[in-house]
């Protein structure tokens, strides 16, 4: 941690350059994977598969948006998948209790926001480390989901809603849910990159103390980010339930790691202060399309984990190595120059 901050203060420009490079690189890599997969994997380019791809990346994409902001402020939220699961379980519970779906959905969103607020309270009011807090609520929320719904499943949600989630816009192959993803991505992108809130997010991530001196209230900002993170996870829980028409307590288990992997793959620094939403979107699409393409090529789902893991480590390692090489080269150039200078000075004397 210290090494990173030290090098940031010493040499800001190469790091800024490297970040921009990575963003471009990840988007290029994503496009490349999409092209290669369409050309070489049977059925990858079909409109039906496109629909599946979008539905597969839907929960990760949604949750990754607020996660990006949370990680840019230097915190983390590992409880999102459990929030998704609890939202889904409560949805099933209320549906079993014969509540109308029109009340259930807002309640689940509210629940998500409240769960996020609990995280925010522990992190910002009590000042506890977010990693430990959200590992705690990861277990707590998932446990509560099982308490609410047990290990059964609730199905038979109204077809009107489930059909909308799995359906497409008019006669086009564009899935309905893509509207939600795109709309939220635009909102989060604009907020992060074009508003004072976004600048505050980056400022807090770069240096909380400096941000406070500049008039930002880091605690309040982080609290609301956790609320939004919970809200979006609650929404993801509702959509997940409707997509599979099945409310289960273990819905989305383990998703938090995939989300964090996608965000970091998208070039967001785990130390905060750096990152951009287009890169994150590319990271999500890259992971989802790789998984989709490999699955179509009959590679087992679990072996895909190797690809995810390697990409995750490489996303941070590659720029570091490039930087180290660049630094070594410039050091050598520096040394040879100074040697030249001293030898020429000798010539003069």
């Amino acid at each position: 941690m210290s090494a990173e901050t030290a090098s940031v203060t010493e040499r800001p420009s190469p790091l800024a350059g490297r970040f921009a490079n990575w963003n471009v690189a990840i988007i290029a890599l994503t496009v490349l994977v999409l092209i290669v997969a369409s050309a070489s994997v049977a059925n990858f380019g079909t409109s039906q598969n496109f629909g599946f791809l979008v539905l597969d990346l839907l929960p990760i994409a949604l949750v990754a948006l607020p996660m990006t902001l949370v990680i840019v402020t230097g915190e983390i939220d590992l409880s999102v998948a459990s929030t998704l699961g609890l939202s889904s379980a409560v949805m099933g519970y209320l549906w079993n209790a014969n509540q109308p779906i029109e009340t259930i959905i807002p309640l689940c969103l509210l629940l998500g926001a409240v769960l996020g607020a609990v995280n925010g309270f522990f992190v910002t009011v009590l000042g506890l480390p977010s990693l430990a807090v959200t590992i705690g609520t990861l277990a707590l929320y998932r446990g509560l989901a099982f308490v609410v719904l047990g290990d059964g499943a609730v199905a038979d949600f109204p077809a009107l809603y489930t059909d909308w989630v799995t359906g497409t816009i008019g006669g086009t192959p564009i899935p309905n849910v893509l509207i939600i993803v795109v709309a939220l991505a635009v909102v989060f992108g604009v907020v992060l990159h074009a508003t004072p809130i976004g600048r505050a997010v980056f400022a807090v991530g770069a240096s909380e103390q400096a941000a406070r001196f500049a008039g930002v209230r880091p605690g309040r900002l982080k609290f609301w980010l956790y609320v939004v993170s919970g809200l979006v996870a609650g929404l993801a829980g509702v959509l997940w339930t409707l997509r599979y028409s099945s409310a289960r307590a273990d819905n989305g288990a383990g998703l938090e790691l995939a989300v964090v992997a996608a965000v970091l793959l998208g070039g967001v620094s785990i130390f905060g202060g750096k990152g951009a939403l287009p890169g994150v979107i590319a990271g999500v699409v890259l992971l989802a399309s790789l998984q989709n393409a490999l699955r179509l090529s009959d590679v087992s789902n679990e072996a895909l984990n190797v690809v995810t893991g390697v990409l995750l480590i490489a996303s941070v390692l590659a720029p570091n190595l490039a930087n180290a090489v660049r630094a070594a080269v410039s050091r050598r150039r520096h040394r040879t120059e100074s040697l030249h200078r001293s030898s020429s000075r000798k010539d003069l004397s």
Partner: protein
Amino acid sequence: MTAVGLPGVTARRSSLDLVLRARELGIVLALALLVAVTAISNPRFLSAQSIRDILLGTAILAVLAVGQAVVVITRNIDLSVGSVLGLSAFTVGTLLRDNPGLPVVVALLVGAGVGGVCGALNGVLVRYGNVPALVVTLGTLYVVRGITYFWAGGQQINADELPAGFLDFGNATLLSVPYLVLIALLVLVVTGLVLRNYRAGRELYAMGSSPQAAKLAGIAVGRRTVVAFLVSGALAGLAGVLFAARFGTIDAAAGTGYELNVVAAVVVGGVAVFGGSGSVWGAALGALLLTTIGSALAVLEINQFWQQAIVGGLILLAIGADRLVAARVAASLKKRGSHVS
């Protein structure tokens, strides 16, 4: 680390020691309360079989927790332990299935070796790749698990394929203490002593308290980081062998999700997530408490589904309590400092 010759240092150290001991005392009290309540409502809880089950479960979790504590004390984290346990268990299972004559010691060494290689890889990536531990070990969590699935390809190793000697090792006892528990105790005592009394151990605390200061003090931070991850990996590998011996049935999913239990045990045991404080004793006590809660719920006929929620609540409680204690200690140190000057 010990500022010799300064007045008041010994008093300060003993008061700090007391606080830390109080932290572990808290877990012991919670544990005693839990056992008492459960035993009163159902005496079966204290039967030899029930205690044995709890201790066997604790042995595996405690070995993992000790390794995790070593890493967390240096202000890092190792999320790959569950996957490493799985790879080690499957490696040892395959090895024993194909060579039934192999002695148990070889199995233990192979398991620890496999884990050690994974741990060293983590350490090298953290140290020389300059990649944060959370990212590296999240990555190797996926990679190692994926490799195990790739290798296993859906096959499962059953108890009847394993040599009887190995399964006996999982059940046998010495003076009515199971071998697995003895191994866990050995790991705990050795690691605990090294961390408490030896330079190598104290330097890990120094690194966790302040990486910069540790570097300035001449501590080989890089090498120590790699060694900490190596220890965590090797212990996860060892835990994999214990897992194989205890359950006998091994597939590629062995140990999935263990990392959260392990981190929970360590945090509940009073090891601060930002390094520099806590002990492996606390981590092992945390493992014991979590395992006991699981058994107690079953005995009390409380819905098993509550277990995870309780673990989550305990983590929040533990870090909250630690925060409170830290604030108290800081305040009292400040007060004492002002008296001296």
